[in-house]
């Protein structure tokens, strides 16, 4: 290739890089996204560092100091066994931040594939599957998950699988409607005219264009998943003791809330802040993709 052409291509690559930078700048300017990432980032650090970050041993009983109110020694007080709640809240981030994202990821991958297939292939299968999805949406999902977990037995793996499967139809529905719009665009016709197969059209042509929608949907679902896992743990079907999980802590202490509010408040606030952080990220991402 001639030198000027190479130079031109170099220039266009540089332009592409500056465009990527532009998108980053939009992302950084979004205060919503920034706030969400900060909150989420904080909890991720807690989950990763765990016990090293905690001032005291979160699992050490101290029967001389049970149910102590917040003080300089125990910022968030202590629980029934005298364990430091502040340390337990920090360590408690770990399990939920493993289980909820994995479940959401599973649901997104399966849901996106299902949505692509239904939206592109249409026909009787789509009609039937869409009705089934609507029926699933009408059920109280926590109950469905509870029954499934009761049947297969509770472990981190089964919780991931059950929540992943429960989310699949919900994500499929969102992706399907985006795929319906894409399928009508002429680039799909052009792909058929050059002999592309069905799978190539679905995954190479259409998928990249619905991916932003799937990613935003995934973040929204992550918020639900955190809440979902916390609820299951509260009911005893989610994360299992001896984990310092927030849901378990709330379950163990909620009967004391009248006199010993600190045993429940900080775990509940932690759960809420994580959900809010994830939702802020979802909003921010949606904004960046639209821009």
């Amino acid at each position, binding site marked *: *290739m001639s030198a000027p*052409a190479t130079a*031109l*291509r170099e*220039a*266009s*690559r540089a332009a*592409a890089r500056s465009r990527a930078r532009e998108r980053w700048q939009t992302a950084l300017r979004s205060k919503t996204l920034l706030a969400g990432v900060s909150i989420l980032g904080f909890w991720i650090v807690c989950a990763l560092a765990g016990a090293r970050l905690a001032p005291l041993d979160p699992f050490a009983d101290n029967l001389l100091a049970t149910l102590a109110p917040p003080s300089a020694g125990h910022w968030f007080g202590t629980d029934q066994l005298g364990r430091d709640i502040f340390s337990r809240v920090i360590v408690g981030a770990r399990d939920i931040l493993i289980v909820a994202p994995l479940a959401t990821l599973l649901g997104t991958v399966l849901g996106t594939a299902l949505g692509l297939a239904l939206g592109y292939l249409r026909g009787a299968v789509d009609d039937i599957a869409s009705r089934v999805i609507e029926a699933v949406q009408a059920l109280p999902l926590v109950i469905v998950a509870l029954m499934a977990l009761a049947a297969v037995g509770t472990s981190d793996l089964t919780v991931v699988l059950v929540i992943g499967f429960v989310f699949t139809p919900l994500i499929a529905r969102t992706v399907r409607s985006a795929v319906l719009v894409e399928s009508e*665009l*002429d*680039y799909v*016709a*052009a*792909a*058929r*005219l*050059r*002999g*592309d197969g069905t799978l190539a059209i679905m995954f190479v*042509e259409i998928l*990249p*264009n619905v991916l932003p929608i799937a990613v935003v949907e995934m973040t929204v679902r992550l918020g639900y998943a955190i809440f979902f896992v916390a609820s299951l743990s509260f009911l005893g079907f989610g994360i299992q003791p001896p984990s310092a999980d927030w849901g378990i802590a709330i379950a163990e202490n909620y009967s004391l809330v009248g006199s010993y509010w600190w045993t429940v408040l900080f775990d509940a606030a932690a759960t809420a802040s994580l959900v809010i952080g994830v939702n802020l990220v979802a909003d921010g991402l949606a904004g960046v993709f639209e821009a």
Partner: protein
Amino acid sequence: MSDALRIEHLEVSFRVGQRERKVVSDVSFAIRRGESYGLVGESGCGKSTVAFAAIRYLARNGRVSGGRIWVDGQDLWSLPARELRRLRTHSIAMVYQDPGRALNPTTRIGTQMAEVFEVAEGLKGRVALERAAQMLARVQIASPERVLRNFPHELSGGMQQRVVIAMALSMSPGLLILDEPTTGLDATVEAEVLDLIEHLRAELGNAILFISHNLPVVARLCDRVGVLYAGELVEEGPGSSVFRDPRHPYTVGLLRCMPAYGARKNQGRLETIPGFLPAPGTITGRCVYADRCANVTERCRAEVPPAIDLGGRMSRCFYPERAPDLPRQVAAPARGAQPGPAAHTRTQAHEVPLLRTHHLSKTYRIAGRPLQAVHEVTLDLWPGETLGLVGESGSGKSSLAKLLLGLSSPDAGSRVQLRGEALPASADDRTREQLKALQMVFQNPGSALNRSQTVRRLLGRSLRLTRLVGRAREARLEELAESVRLTPQHLDEKPRRLSGGLKQRVGIARAFAGGPRVVVCDEPTSALDVSVQAAILNLLVDLQAQEHVGYIFISHDLNVVHYLSDRIAVLYLGRLMEIGPAERVFSGPHHPYTEALLSANPTLENEGARRIRLHGELPNVLNLPSGCVFHTRCPRKLGSICEREEPPLVDAGSGHGIRCHIPAAELATRAPVVSPPG
């Protein structure tokens, strides 16, 4: 007496991100009472921005950063809110491009129209409705009472636009702003709406600001015109003198790039305007048109040309007297301009056509009822030939294209043959060779290119049909890009970074990737501006000459079809009404429908053309008329035979077929609708 609208040194700026962008600069013009003023220019020139500034309705991030606007003698931008509201109710009205979106879909027409009178004049229920009915009668709606009870979706586009115009006129505004009022409408409907506007103007005498990209339409309707370019008014004056004797190089260029009425591809290439429209507000301190102007001098690049008064007209050019002699591009006749090979090959019986359809039909089922989108269409396409396909929306042009390409399956009994061999109905069942042979250029390049792929990847995927690999494929890709005049720089861009014209070039390159024999072009230029359209048409002509492909060219623009086509087929409600050599279809004898289409076609050259208007609505496609499907609107209906029997395609000589009960000899006695040029 004060002018209906007076704009002086108008400047409009928009905030985009952190920056302020000037999108309209130093625009001045005045519309006298009762005068009609046309504002023309390509998309992105600031036409609509001027209109919105004139009713003080700019978007939130926009503001008038300089100049003043008077409506009816009142300084618009300094009026208090109450006065502004009064002015908007009584003195100005606006009609937008898409009537479907201007009407409230959940409310009956009567309720919407009566509201105007209730708010403005305090009329109540029945009285307001009566006034609404009067207004509908005024815009020549035959049964106002029925229309008042209709919801907007129950009306056709033409009727909706009449209703919107009636609403706009209900307070007899002194100034009526029409923003591309006929752009979404079919040619015959557009002609009717324009007739109506002309008629109303004569009757009501209000001033009109008419915004359009369509020069012939503006020429027909407007006393004065202003030409906008990149947010500046570059030329202004009486319509007749601006269009006949333009004094700004941009106007000259714009007029030259439209295929003139009767122009043919073998008579020469179309003129184009080199370069691109600059983003508004990016050129300062010099002439906005300097980069694209053939008459450019040092002075144009150093100073802003002032508005030069030429006695009743204005040109923003240092050298207005040189504009008419703007150098033409090399007026070489288009390559491959030998008179259509089609004409003689066809007479040789042993020759097989490139593409042949035999009784091609497509029936959709809508709630169990049949909808005939295409009905028994039989036609041939010869190598190197262009077959133009014309007809209004709903005539089955695009459905026919989809059948040929195998994107939808025809009814049983239909046959499509490629070089004498039967083609499988679905593209999915066609062989690699068959797929390569038949390709398509789509109408909307934005939707036809996958936005997540770079041009290089997009073309590369189409090149897989050629089985080329590695360096050979890379080399072919670059050759392909060069053949449609894309630079290597464009190859690494994603479609959204390209202009409409460049996107369409990518679309054309993709169609030619596998070395096609037939390319179906579905309105390939209707989404583009005139100056871009000319370059794309030139490219299509060049590629045809080089590759000797046959085109099926679909368009609603008769001048474009005439320019490009060797033969033309006219469709109405999925049926072939007329087919024949392009010059015969244009010069007659005509099918009555073709006659109406030609008469509705706005051209700069034929202002005095005979007006044949179709009345009534397009029949319901689920309940087609018996006999000849055109009899419900035909101005030359013979009698009951038209209602009983479907006419045969009668041979009118030299391969010219007309589907009409009127004998060809009698059709030939009618003078042509529009006389050939010269």
